[in-house]
Every structure is written in C-alpha cells, then in structure tokens.
C-alpha cells in the first residue's frame, strides 16, 4: 500500500478538506494490519471517536414514547395544574394585601399610642366661646363637686359624734 497517499489524505482530513467519501476511504485504509506504527495511532483516533451505526433504538422505544404522548393528550394534566396554582397564588396575595390594609388602618397601633394621647390632650376643643358663660358653668360644676364632698363630711361628723357618745359612756363607767 502506498502510505504517502494515506498521509496526504490524513493531512487533508485534519485541514477539514476531505469529502465524506474520502473520509470513509481513509478509515478503511487505516484498518490495514500492515500499517506502520505511527499511523496506527490514527486508527485508534478513528476507532475511539466513531460510534458504531449498530448503536440504535428499536421500535419498542417509539411505542413507549407514543404511549406517553397519547396518555398526556387524553389527560391534559399540566394546564389544569398551572391554572390551579395560579389561582392559589393570586388568592394568597389578595389575602395578604387585604389583611395588611385592615391591620394598618383599623387596629390600634402600639407604636402610635403615646403620640395619639399627647395629640388628644393638645387638641381639646373649646365648648364655650363666651368666658363669662364658661366661668358660670365651671362654678356650677365645682359647686356640684363640693356638695358631694360635703355629704361625706356630714356623714363623718355624724359618725364621730356617735363615737364621742360611746367614749363619754366609757369615761363615766371608769
């Protein structure tokens, strides 16, 4: 065999200039048992990089895949699952937003309590525009208060007078 021809073909192959037919011929020539040692390396190259045409899948594979497709077609599980999960996510978001809004606006906020108390004290509305009328109303209110207080004093005086009687009795018996 003319090995120089083989070497030229190899050079052409590694330059990417061979046709598919030339590559087939090259692989065939490299199978020669009398090949010089350096060229045997390229036999290993082709044997290792080429995958046998016998590596194939049979009709059972097709059946398995087609069965999968048919089953998937009849059930349509994916869109239903997607719709359900979308609704679930949407309802959770609505709940969180509504809950947050209600809490912020309607529930007492512990962080703002002190501030609101001070504000209430500072913003008491005047009910009387006329100072004289206001004084009269204040006097009435204080009189009512003092009358209630006096009741207590009278009761205390009555009780203490009773105690005085008892103490007098005790003194006389001594």
């Amino acid at each position, binding site marked *: 065999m003319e090995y120089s021809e083989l070497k030229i073909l190899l050079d052409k192959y590694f330059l*990417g200039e061979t046709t598919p037919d030339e*590559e087939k011929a090259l692989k065939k020539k490299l199978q020669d048992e009398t090949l010089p040692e350096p060229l045997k*390396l390229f036999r290993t*190259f082709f044997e290792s990089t080429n995958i046998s045409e016998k590596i194939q899948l049979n009709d059972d594979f097709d059946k398995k895949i087609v069965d999968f497709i048919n089953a998937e077609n009849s059930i349509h599980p994916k869109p239903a699952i997607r719709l359900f999960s979308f609704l679930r996510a949407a309802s959770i978001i609505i709940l969180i937003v509504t809950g947050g809004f209600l809490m912020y606006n309607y529930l007492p906020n512990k962080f703002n309590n002190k501030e609101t108390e001070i504000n209430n004290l500072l913003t008491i509305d005047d009910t009387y525009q006329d100072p004289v009328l206001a004084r009269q109303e204040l006097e009435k209110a204080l009189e009512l208060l003092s009358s209630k207080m006096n009741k207590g004093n009278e009761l205390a005086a009555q009780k203490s007078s009773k105690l005085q009687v008892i103490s007098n009795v005790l003194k006389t018996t001594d």
Partner: protein
Amino acid sequence: MDYKRTFTETILPLKNNLMRYSYSFLKDRHKAEDMVQETMIRMWNIKEKWREMDNLQGYCLGIIRHLCLDELRKRKNHYYALNVAHQEQSTDNDPLEHYSSKEVVVAISNAMLKLPEKQHFCFHLRENEGMTYEQISEILGISMDQVKVNIFRARNYIKKEILKKVEYGVQ
C-alpha cells in the same frame, strides 16, 4: 399545528442520531437510551414553543448534550474515563503497547469532553452521521464556513491531545 404528527414525523426519527450522540458521551447503552427518552419528553413538554424554534434537531442536540454532561458530572469523569479504557478491545500482545493504546483512548475521551458545544456537534454530525457541511450548517443554524472551522478545530484539538500522550507523531 398538529403537534403529534410533527413529533412522530420530525422529532421521533431523530432517536438514533440522539442515541449515538448520547452514547459518544456515556458509553452505556441503557443510560444513553434514558437520555434520549428524557430529551423526547422534554421536547414534547415544550411543544407550544416549536414554532419559535428554527431547527428542532439542533434544539434536541442541545437538550441531550446538557443531560449527558449532567450525567457525567454525577458519575465523576475521571473514573468514567478509566472504565472506557477497560472496555476497549486490543489485539496487541505486547503489554506496553496495550497500555499505550489505553492511554490514547483515555486522552481521546477526555479531549472529546472538553470540546466546546458547537465543535462537538459539528464533529459528531460529520464523523458519526456522515453529514455534509451544508446539512450540518442547516441543523445548527450556522454558516458552512463556521462548520468547517469548528470541525477543523475539533479534529486538531483531539490530535494535539493524543500527541501530547505519545512522544512521536507522523512526520
């Protein structure tokens, strides 16, 4: 679009091509078949996007490549490469020669795994499917010049890796 028809007429016939591509990575028929099956199922699950894809075959190759690389990561590449070497049949009686041949096979396997995606696709389609540059350019959606450059680089990278292992080369 009749998805089922498109699938059975366009995607399912790619099974042997994908099987050989997967086998070139994994060197295990059963695992390679699993990868093809997973690729088919994934393609079916994205059927609504088929219209947007320029080339279904190129897309399938992309899916199976990633599946195979994930599988190899699980296996740990180093031990895998050694196992490949043990599977190789040698007719040589000389133990040293036998060992050298194994070393070369391991070097080739490792070099193949290191090829960039496009180079690996081009190399595979040319070497194992016997496709012309034009057919490859259509499948991968790249120009013929790019196909040629990718094949040139892939072949020479593997050659360089082999020659690193062997002290002598072809003059």
